[in-house]
């Protein structure tokens, strides 16, 4: 490869890198997207497509997510690939009166943060989710929760960015970053040098390593999630669905975390969504097992068991597949966004943990603003790297 140059280099061809390249190109920047494997070969190609407002912490994270959902509506029109954006609404199920109590108080917080949530009683849940278990005592419903096809989204963003002038380099790994006089100058890659003064790190679980190249600690570590997939069936779920333990796992709320020893070890929380093609995706686990992406019988069984307790009528569906992905997990579960003190031209867009699909559009938009204008339309200081000091 001859020496390349770019106005902005984006490291990582997952949903975050693709969204960043898209919004940068939209503003006329000359972008080089560098991907070690292929588009969506990381977490973005092995995940669910929940755009789940109810699971976001009321505050800056929820605010970001809401802005992001608005952008999905625009993307749906602008991208040339159908991203299967579906404003289906979402449910959080409670299976005991204690859980329902906790859910009610949580719903209050969400409401005061401006989210349109309602509490459904057992009968109302039954009417919304036909065939669900009698054990369900209530649920919260938010009509603004939605879903998307994460792979189509990643590909759609990358393709459009490419059409607007982004160059995409695949099978190209960033191996070092040359910094001189406190400014990024050059990337060393497996295919050669790239001269650039602006670099966005959107490398998912590879971000920690990218950080090391710039001699900073980016606390992102892989957190595995396993999912099982059923045969395609006629629409039967209608909504994206989770349970209280999922909420507990995501928000680190001790009182609603899984009770069983196995559930805790696997980080089990129930999720179910039906894709446009009719398959039902059942999840999921949250495990710290390094870079291992295997699916395990223990987790698959636990997910199946969990799913049947909520949705007994799916027990006769055939499971045709399982998969696992590695979330780029940050210590507080919130993304790490923005510049880094002492290194001009180096930006982080990573650590999205289990919310990267949902937050991709707004992340891309804000990072593009930051890189090109030096400021963002929404305050991103709550997501800065320096919060971990």
């Amino acid at each position, binding site marked *: 490869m001859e020496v390349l140059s770019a106005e902005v280099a984006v490291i990582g061809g997952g949903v975050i890198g693709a969204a960043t390249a898209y919004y940068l190109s939209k503003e006329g920047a000359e972008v080089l997207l560098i991907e070690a*494997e*292929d*588009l*969506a*070969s990381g977490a973005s*190609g092995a995940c669910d497509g929940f755009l789940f407002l109810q699971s976001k912490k009321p505050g800056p994270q929820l605010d970001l997510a809401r802005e992001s959902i608005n952008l999905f509506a625009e993307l749906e029109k602008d991208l040339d690939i159908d991203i299967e954006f579906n404003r289906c609404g979402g449910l959080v199920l409670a299976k005991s009166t204690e859980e329902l109590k906790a859910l009610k108080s949580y719903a209050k917080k969400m409401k005061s943060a401006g989210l349109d949530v309602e509490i459904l009683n057992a009968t109302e849940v039954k009417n919304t989710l036909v065939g669900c278990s009698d054990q369900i005592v209530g649920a919260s419903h938010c009509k603004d929760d939605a879903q998307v096809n994460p*792979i*189509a989204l990643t*590909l759609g963003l990358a*393709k459009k960015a490419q059409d607007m002038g982004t160059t*995409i380099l*695949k099978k190209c790994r960033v191996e070092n970053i040359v910094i001189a006089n406190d400014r990024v100058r050059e990337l060393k890659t497996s295919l050669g040098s790239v001269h650039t003064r602006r670099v966005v790190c959107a490398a998912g679980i590879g971000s920690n390593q990218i950080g090391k190249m710039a001699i900073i600690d980016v606390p992102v570590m892989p957190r595995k999630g396993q999912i*099982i997939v*059923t*045969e395609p069936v006629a629409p039967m779920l209608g909504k994206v669905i989770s349970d209280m333990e999922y909420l507990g796992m995501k928000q680190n709320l001790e009182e609603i975390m899984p009770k069983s020893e196995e559930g805790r070890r696997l980080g089990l929380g129930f999720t179910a969504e039906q894709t446009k*093609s009719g398959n039902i995706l059942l999840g999921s686990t949250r495990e710290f097992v390094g870079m291992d*992406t295997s*699916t395990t*019988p223990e987790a*698959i*069984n*636990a997910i*199946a*068991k969990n*799913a*049947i307790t909520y949705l007994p009528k*799916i*027990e*006769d*569906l*055939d*499971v*045709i*597949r*399982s*998969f696992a992905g590695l979330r780029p997990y940050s210590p507080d579960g919130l993304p790490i966004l923005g510049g880094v003190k002492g290194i001009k031209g180096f930006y982080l867009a990573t650590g999205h943990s289990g919310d990267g699909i949902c937050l991709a559009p707004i992340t891309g938009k804000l990072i593009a603003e930051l890189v090109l204008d030096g400021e963002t339309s929404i305050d991103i200081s709550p997501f800065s790297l320096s919060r971990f000091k």
Partner: protein
Amino acid sequence: MKRKYILIDCFQDIPCNPCEEICPHKAIEVGSPITRTPRYYEERCDGCAKCVAVCPGLCIYLVEEEEGSDKMTITLPYEFLPLPRKGELASVLDYNGREVGQGIVKRVKNTKSENGTALISVEVSRAIGLAARNILIRKTDDSEPELVEGERESFTDFQICRCEEVLLSELRTLAKMGIVFAPNLRRFSRVGLGLCQGKACSELMFSELSNITGMTVGELGHPKARPPVRPIKLRELFG
């Protein structure tokens, strides 16, 4: 008395049921679980041969026989080029590919609705009829086989993955967009992600892909095989 019926050489417990779905008269039943082998009800069958064309395993054959005649007609699925022609003499092969005799090509049907699988009807003697599984047209010279006009075109697109109904042209489009590595191609096109879990289509996908891209199968990379290896009921997963 004319009699029309099918033979089904489907013996493995594979997750597959297009024959059941396509039959307009419910003459084939796979039922549940989908890995059951098909059962056939001759009394309901009208011999339309739709199942012959749809079976991805090419393992259904239509037999037509007439009382008193020492000939019978076998209709078989055929996926090679060039297609045989009406009136041509064909060697008749059995299940193991051994030549068991000769027959005359009586009909060649190749419509779009059959996804590029042609239906060839050969007239054979009763003695070998039920053993016929394929035919071979012996070439008399080495020249390039000449194709009937439109024949190649009708074969330039077909369903490479029947479970997810992915056309070869869709793979070509993705390849043009630069999606060539097998794991990703699978993600984007869904090829190989259906009920048969790639058992039926993987080989075909790889050979077509290396045709399209010029890359070797090794370079294309292998998607990860994930459990379960065949569909299993949710409730059977734990216990």
